[in-house]
């Protein structure tokens, strides 16, 4: 499974270390608590900046330029909106339902605004990123496609997943250079099938080994007077199934698609990317991180984060196709109607898996 990065690929380098990050993280935490959460906006900037600053490609690093104030205002707007929504929904459930439908249309706009904000606030080698996706595209990708996928009972999930990644990557720019992901459906469906095969094989193997019978199981589920020990056994089995079948399957899918995406993504100017993460390593990192973090009452969380960042960086490569000196930040178009008045709103961070 562990193939090396292709010839000519320079691995990303994460130079942060757990000790240093721990100091920053714990002070962030303390100040956030002392200021009843207000400082957390600045803490977020510091955290993001730390990880960006310590990620290098070809001796050049990333940077994050948002200010705590921008993030704070974005968060206050979100909190206000949630409160208004909660009150409306509990006072007038019907109107709440209408608002929910309205949100369906606001959501794509929010996604685009937040991606624009995050892109513009990030830079590599002194050149800012940009995002050019449209709200219409976002509506299609994040509202229509998921509905269609659900209608096909998730057999088309790889199509949806590829659409989301394509929306995110193909609309990003570094300065004026466009990112482009060109990957067929094959790798996505292959990853999907491998994950499903894993679930089926492990499930069957487990059933054979434990002498588990479906009739017994159905009986236990149907009979409300089943002894509690039986019920506990079923619950335990579900957790076991989750940890040995579903969780690894999710990581298999994630690892295979990540590699496919990076290996088929280019940056204008002849630059290419590469990735060779493996499901086994990712799973091991995630599970061992979880155990360590919980056992240390979260105090080892910075260590876990650094460990993950280091692994991902080391298994992500950049294949330069020319000089790294030729990127130029896109001239910002003059603030239109939706320009400056809404810039603060852009601090809203819609968490997206990229």
């Amino acid at each position, binding site marked *: 499974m562990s193939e090396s990065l292709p010839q000519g690929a320079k691995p990303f380098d994460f*130079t*942060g270390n757990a000790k*240093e*990050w*721990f*100091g*920053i993280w*714990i*002070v962030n*935490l*303390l100040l956030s*608590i*002392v200021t009843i*959460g207000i400082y*957390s906006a600045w*803490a*977020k900037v510091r*955290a993001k*900046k*730390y990880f960006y*600053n*310590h990620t290098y490609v070809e001796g*050049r*690093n990333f*940077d994050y330029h948002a200010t705590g104030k921008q993030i704070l205002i974005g*968060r206050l707007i979100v*909190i206000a909106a949630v409160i208004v929504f*909660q009150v409306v929904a*509990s*006072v*007038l*459930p019907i109107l709440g339902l209408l608002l929910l439908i309205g949100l369906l249309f606001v959501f794509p706009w929010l996604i685009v605004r937040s991606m624009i904000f995050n892109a513009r606030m990030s830079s590599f*080698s*002194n*050149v*800012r990123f940009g995002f050019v996706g449209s709200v219409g595209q976002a509506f299609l990708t994040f509202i229509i496609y998921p509905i269609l996928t659900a209608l096909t009972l998730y057999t088309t999930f790889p199509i949806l997943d590829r659409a989301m990644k394509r929306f995110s990557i193909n609309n990003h720019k570094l*300065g004026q250079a466009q990112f482009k992901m060109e990957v067929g459906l094959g790798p996505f469906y292959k990853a999907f099938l491998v994950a499903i095969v894993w679930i089926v094989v492990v499930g069957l193997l487990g059933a054979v080994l434990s002498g588990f019978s479906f009739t017994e199981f159905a009986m236990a589920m149907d009979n409300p*007077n089943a*002894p*509690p020990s039986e*019920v506990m056994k079923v619950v335990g089995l579900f957790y076991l199934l989750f940890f040995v079948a579903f*969780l690894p399957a999710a990581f298999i899918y994630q690892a295979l698609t990540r590699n496919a995406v990076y290996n088929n993504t280019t940056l204008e100017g002849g630059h290419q990317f590469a990735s060779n993460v493996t499901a086994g390593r990712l799973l091991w990192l*995630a599970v061992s*991180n*979880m155990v360590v*973090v*919980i056992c240390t*009452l*979260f*105090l080892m*969380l910075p260590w*876990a*984060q650094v460990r*993950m960042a280091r692994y991902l960086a080391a298994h992500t490569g950049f294949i330069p196709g020319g000089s*790294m*000196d*030729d*990127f*130029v*930040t896109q001239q910002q178009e003059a603030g239109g109607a939706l320009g400056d008045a809404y810039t603060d709103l852009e601090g809203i961070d819609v968490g997206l898996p990229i």
Partner: protein
Amino acid sequence: MSDAPQLRGLRGHAYAARSSYRQPARLLTREGGEDLWVDIQNDERAVLGSAYLSELQIDPPLGTAPRKVTFPDGAVFETSDHDAIEALTGKTRGSMLHHYEGFNARLIGVVAICLAAAWVLWRYGLDIMASVAIAFTPPAVIEQIDVGSMQTIDFTMAEPSKLSDEQKADVEKIYHRLVQSLPQDVQERHSFDLLFRDVPGMGPNAFALPGGTMVMTDAFVNEFPEPDVMAGVLGHEIGHVVEEHGLRRLYRSLSTYILIAFLAGDVGPILEDVVLEGNVLLSLSFSRRQETSADEFGLTLSDEAGFDPAGLKVFFEKLSEKYADQEPAQWTSTHPSSQERVKAIDAFIDGL
């Protein structure tokens, strides 16, 4: 500036404005009247940027990450010579923060304070946040929550009550006696409406909504017509209303969610789910505390109103007889087990 071969000044790299063009360079300073004049010079001694020190934007220190100096025209100078930059800027607020973030023995104190603060936050902070939120919720909103919830309940699961008027009157008499025993100001704060509904899936049950609306199922009136039992259960539900348990729970879970999202930050895959599920288990224990508290409130109230507080016990005893095998383990449940509650009730009655 005559000693040409000597490379003095602060070594680093320079970027042209808005460009990734990167070249080795150094930062030179000289007196410029009131302020210090700063130049970026490349190895060929060409000046790439210059400005007064006060015009420069110098990013605050962050661990061992390189320091960045941005000139007014957008040219950037980057260096890992942390001491030299600090000498240039002098002590700033950013450098204070940086100092306290350093990994040394002092951090043990910070860790201790954080752990203590996290515990206090969980133990008291959530309650305070919930109390503040409750205080800021206008009564009209709470009443409307009841109206809205009843609409939903009537629409999805409840049917009109099939009880006779005498049956209803009997229950209402008991209910009024209980409400009359509450202090005057508490009586005025909530509506205390009693509604009867036939809810087929719910069995013998009674529940209270945050604004004070009380709902009793037909099955309950049919199976437990004894006034003492009725008083015990109604007293328990009145306890939920007076102590504002419903709202408190709503606000507590909201507060927990906000705290985790804002303080712990990104916890990574798997762990995220574990944190949220752990949170559910903790809130279950909170809900059990509420039940116990409402039990005690109900016992005191029915005692004051002249009922036999043992009535509530009868209810739980019957319940545990009927559903002996089905009770889930305590830690997975929102209510304490019936046996447990009977024991607690006995102990409380002894103390009355």
